[in-house]
């Protein structure tokens, strides 16, 4: 056995990259080397034996795996709802503690977003600031400063949680925006 034989035998053991297609260089060598031809036949038979030895596909197992994954996904989504509900409650609690939102003028501003939208928005912000000031004055008599701060914190945490939950709701790979 020369080095060409060894090279060819390594290729034969590895098997053709594309099934049924033999490298022309290998085919050429096999034509003139009886020992490698016998080696090729034995290798082909060995590959066949090993191929038939592999367990056949089990459709029932496939179905079982798919059902298990579906159940897992349904549970994941149900569990993802818990922090959503918690964060909504937190935001509502915080907003309520702060004295509520001046809803009327904000709601009025929303449909006019394109035309006088910016003006309306500025007006709404001013309304909100004014309302906050009034609420703060009012709360100063009823609720202590730490409680107001706690309310603000609750709103911030609630909004933050909602953002995080929204991001987790739909799974996304760390690599998905690499391309």
């Amino acid at each position: 056995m020369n080095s060409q034989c060894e090279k060819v035998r390594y290729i034969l053991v590895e098997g053709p990259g594309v099934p049924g297609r033999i490298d022309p260089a290998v085919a050429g060598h096999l034509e003139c080397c009886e020992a490698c031809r016998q080696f090729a036949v034995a290798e082909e038979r060995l590959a066949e034996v090993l191929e038939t030895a592999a367990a056949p596909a089990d459709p029932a197992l496939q179905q079982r795996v798919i059902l298990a994954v579906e159940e897992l996904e349904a549970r994941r989504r149900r569990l993802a709802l818990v922090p959503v509900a918690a964060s909504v409650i937190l935001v509502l609690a915080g907003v309520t503690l702060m004295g509520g939102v001046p809803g009327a003028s904000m709601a009025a501003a929303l449909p006019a977003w394109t035309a006088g939208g910016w003006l309306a928005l500025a007006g709404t912000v001013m309304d909100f600031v004014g309302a906050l000031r009034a609420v703060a004055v009012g709360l100063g008599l009823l609720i202590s400063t730490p409680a107001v701060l706690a309310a603000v914190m609750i709103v911030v945490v609630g909004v933050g949680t909602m953002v995080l939950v929204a991001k987790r709701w739909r799974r996304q790979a760390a690599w998905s925006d690499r391309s």
Partner: protein
Amino acid sequence: MVASNDRQEDERLVTASLAGDEDAFAQLVRRYQRRLTAFLSQLVGDVELAKELTQEAFIRAWSALERYDPTYRFSTWLFRIGHNLGIDHLRRRRLKTVPIIREDREGAEVEVVLIDQAKDPLGHLKNSELAGVLRQAIDGLRPEYRELVLLRHFGGLSYQEIADLEGMPLGTVKNKLFRAHSVLRKELESFL
């Protein structure tokens, strides 16, 4: 070219699965279930257990899909999960039982895996004589050869996928499989 297309198709299916398409993941299950079960059956020597481990491997893959690194092929990643599960199982079993050790042809110590006939991963072979000789031949291989043979011929992984999975240079995989084939050809001579 075929391997490259397979890889692209796997990546497409993984991306679709992450977007919530469960059918895409079902396709991945269909692509790899048979090969992973075949590999694990030989690794743990029990078809039914291999099916359970296969199911567990797919569930773990689904749960960790967003952490999958596409630098590696999906098959490599999935087989690594399955392989780890199989090895964990064998370790646990070893803690509960006393292993039977014998020497292989080259004098190295090999653990004998006793196979229940009803759960024999080669039990589906019609030629029971061949099944017996093949079982002996595979079990008689040195552990590092045996694992590569299982990954290659039962798991259907390419040499490159095996090299990635085992963290070995490609040349080492080629050499070990070449030697493993020599042993198998000798042992199965009367059937070839």
